């Protein structure tokens, strides 16, 4: 059957020219978009090793000195720190709060746009360096429990109590940091140090207290190295403390935040502190994705894909409707020779798929030119994310994305052919041969 269809396509090559050209263009463009989504979905499928669902950032503000309720005595750092600790204690007493964690700066919270980066190296082999994200947490509360960090490749939840924070200069690192700086060795107990020094910033050294699973900054990115530095609230940092909580997850985020605001505004008015704002960290990440343009990039790609698919569907529908009309005699003869409805329909579907396959060959040649010209980006590929990832295997990625493109277009073409093929199947031999 394929040979007959092939002959049909060759014999009608002029009228097939338009549809082949359309399929060629759309195949190339659709492949570009499929490649983007392939990398995106691949990155999304990589484990996050932390859970931001049901977590919230609670912003407390301080009254300005001009406010009637401002208390000068409470503004002194020791008093302010004590009030801040009282604020945290009250937050933890809220029935729907499961746990609370403290950290320094927005950059230490997941999903925010802030980032604090550094480069560290192994103290025993100073040629081994890695760029990392700094997370500064306050060791008085269980930051890791709030975000459900894990170790042992997702097997074990991390808790503040697992490590000895008594000695100064200790830090936790993620697996990428441990494997990059101490390949094939046990990293716990080893020393890492900052590479950048200046008269104001002498070299910092930290002993690794433990290794946690790798983290991704965003859902769409690859894992990167992170070092967690513990701190205690003191006069130098209390102004930069961020509060994060995990709710018990019994009620939806909007209701939790509304009820928390209503019930906690008065209790959290301690010293000069007041409850300023709160945000779901899931929403915070969504906001960051929007601000960084990734949300609109995804939407643009999806909209263009939908546009190309609808265009190709209309093209195939129109072309096959015409085809059925001009090939009535052929269909009549086939029916007279015993071909059934199913056989006629199947013939048109195969013809469409064969046309798609023919268009795919030059399309793949053009795609190689795209790749050679450096027009294809790899989302999330970054110096901070060492390791082997499937999208970096060019040939495999090329084959997978082309296969997905072929299947996607086939998934559009077949339904578009069904209506004309159904009409063809309804042509009776007598009717068609009378036309002849």
């Amino acid at each position, binding site marked *: 059957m394929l040979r007959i269809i092939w002959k049909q396509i060759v014999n009608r090559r002029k009228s097939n020219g338009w549809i082949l050209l359309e399929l060629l263009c759309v195949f190339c463009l659709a492949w570009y978009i499929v490649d983007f989504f392939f990398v995106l979905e691949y990155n999304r499928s990589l484990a996050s090793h932390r859970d931001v669902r049901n977590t919230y950032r609670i912003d407390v503000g301080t009254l300005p000195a*001009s406010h009637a309720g401002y208390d000068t005595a409470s503004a002194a750092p020791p008093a302010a720190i004590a009030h801040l600790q009282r604020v945290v204690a009250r937050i933890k007493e809220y029935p729907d709060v499961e746990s609370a964690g403290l950290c320094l700066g927005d950059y230490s919270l997941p999903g925010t746009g802030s980032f604090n980066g550094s480069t560290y190296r192994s103290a025993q082999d100073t040629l081994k360096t890695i760029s990392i994200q700094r997370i500064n947490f306050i060791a008085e509360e269980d930051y890791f429990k709030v975000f459900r960090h894990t170790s042992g490749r997702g097997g074990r939840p991390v808790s503040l109590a697992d490590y000895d924070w008594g000695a100064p200069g200790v830090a936790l690192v993620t697996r990428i940091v441990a494997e990059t700086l101490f390949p094939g060795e046990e990293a716990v107990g080893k020393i890492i140090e900052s590479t950048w020094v200046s008269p104001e910033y002498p070299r910092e050294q930290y002993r690794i207290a433990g290794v946690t699973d790798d983290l991704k900054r965003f859902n769409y990115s690859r894992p990167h190295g992170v070092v967690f530095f513990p701190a205690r609230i003191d006069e130098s940092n209390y102004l930069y403390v961020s509060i994060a909580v995990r709710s018990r997850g019994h009620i939806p985020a909007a209701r939790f935040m509304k009820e928390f605001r209503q019930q906690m505004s008065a209790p959290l008015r301690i010293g000069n502190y007041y409850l300023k*704002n709160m945000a779901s960290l899931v929403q915070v990440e969504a906001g960051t994705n929007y601000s960084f343009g990734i949300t609109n990039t995804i939407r643009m790609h999806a909209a263009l894909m939908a546009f190309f698919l609808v265009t190709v569907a209309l093209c195939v529908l129109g072309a096959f409707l015409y085809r059925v009309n001009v090939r009535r005699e052929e269909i009549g003869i086939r029916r007279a020779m015993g071909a059934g409805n199913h056989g006629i329909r199947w013939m048109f579907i195969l013809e469409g798929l064969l046309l798609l396959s023919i268009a795919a060959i030059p399309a793949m040649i053009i795609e190689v030119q795209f790749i050679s010209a450096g027009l294809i980006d790899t989302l999330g590929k970054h110096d901070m994310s060492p390791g082997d990832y499937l999208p970096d295997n060019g040939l495999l990625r090329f084959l997978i994305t082309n296969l997905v493109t072929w299947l996607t277009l086939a998934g559009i073409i077949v339904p578009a052919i069904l209506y004309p093929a159904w009409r063809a199947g309804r042509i009776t031999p007598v009717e068609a041969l009378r036309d002849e």
Partner: protein
Amino acid sequence: MRMAYYLKQAWQLLKQNRFYSLIYIVGTGLSISMVMILAIVFYIKVANLYPESARDRLLMVRYGQVTTAEGNINSGRLSLHTVDVCMNSLQTAEAVTVVYDEWGDNFVQPAGSDEQLPVAVKYVDTGFWKVFAFSFVNGAPFTEADMQSGIRTAVVSASFARQLFGHTDVAGQYMQLNFDSYRICGVVKDVSFVANHTFAQVWIPYTANAGLEEAWEGSSYGSTLGNFLAYALAPSVKEAGKVREEIKENLHKYAASLGEGITFTVNEQPDRQWQSIFRFYGGQSINFAGLLWQYAGVFLVLLLVPAISLSGMADAQMERRLAEMGVRRAFGAPRHTLMNQLIAENLLFTGLGGVAGLLFSYVLLYAFRSWIIHIGIRQMFVDAAPAGLDVELAPSMLMNYTVFAVALVTCVVLNLLATVIPAWRTSCREIVYSLNKK
């Protein structure tokens, strides 16, 4: 007369092949709607819209980048000192203003409530009210004296005044912003979120926030960077070039006057409005010609991909009419007449598709207005509308002569792309071949 006859014939063809015509019109409409969404978004970003009603005369310097003698690089907004030196002394500009636009962390405390109401604030100067044409529904802008003394005064938007007080006649009343008391001096007609240089709900003198005037990082960075964006308004569109040159010259002299080893650059700025939509951060050097070519490429793809499909359909349709064309040719009709006829007839289908496409683009723009205004090539660091705030698209942004003209041109181009080759092929067929075609 002849055109009317062609269109009448095309209408008959449409009625004869309804399903086929529907596919053609839907295909055309889809293409036109995609092009029109991009065109309207681009229009909204660059056209003169309230209160940025002189965008075509606007020049702006929003980011700078400085490299210290040690090689450290920093980039960001400009310090007030930089703006003073480079912009405030302009001879050619009609008005100049500076703006601090980080409006992410401000809350109003409504009287008698524990609620913290998030609000978008811009810190501006008195020049702001001259550069941008705000419409006051109550009161007036804050004065130069308010500005100089750093008195806490505020202009608020009409909808925000209603939210806070229930009405807009609130000039002279007080509100609590970040627990500080501000006297409301004026109420303006709401500004749409799409007017990104002016959008806010509250505008206050930047002198009311003492910390803003400080430059970042001090002398090692030449006190060049800070918190401000600067805008200059040229007296006319023609004179915008002169203002641009004067700003560039001032910036050049300023950069040369900084300490030894300090390099200060604003790249290609000052930007015109259409250039500003591609700039997102300091130190960004932009190839505007390259970006415009990319936009042209996207427009072409959006037209060409459906055009190939439509060409195929038009070709099939014309193939059916070969016998008719053969008769016309046999009776002496020249080829160009037949070509014109086929292209003109097809214009009816394209026109119907164009109208449908334009209406569909309005539906999409309205439905996705909260984010669709930010689509574009290489968009980064996008400001999301504050939570709970509706992005308003005025009818004048969607329905105006520019948009209609673009839609018309798009229809004609698409029609030509889709029909020239099939019409040429049909009109060039041998008469005998055409007459023999069943």
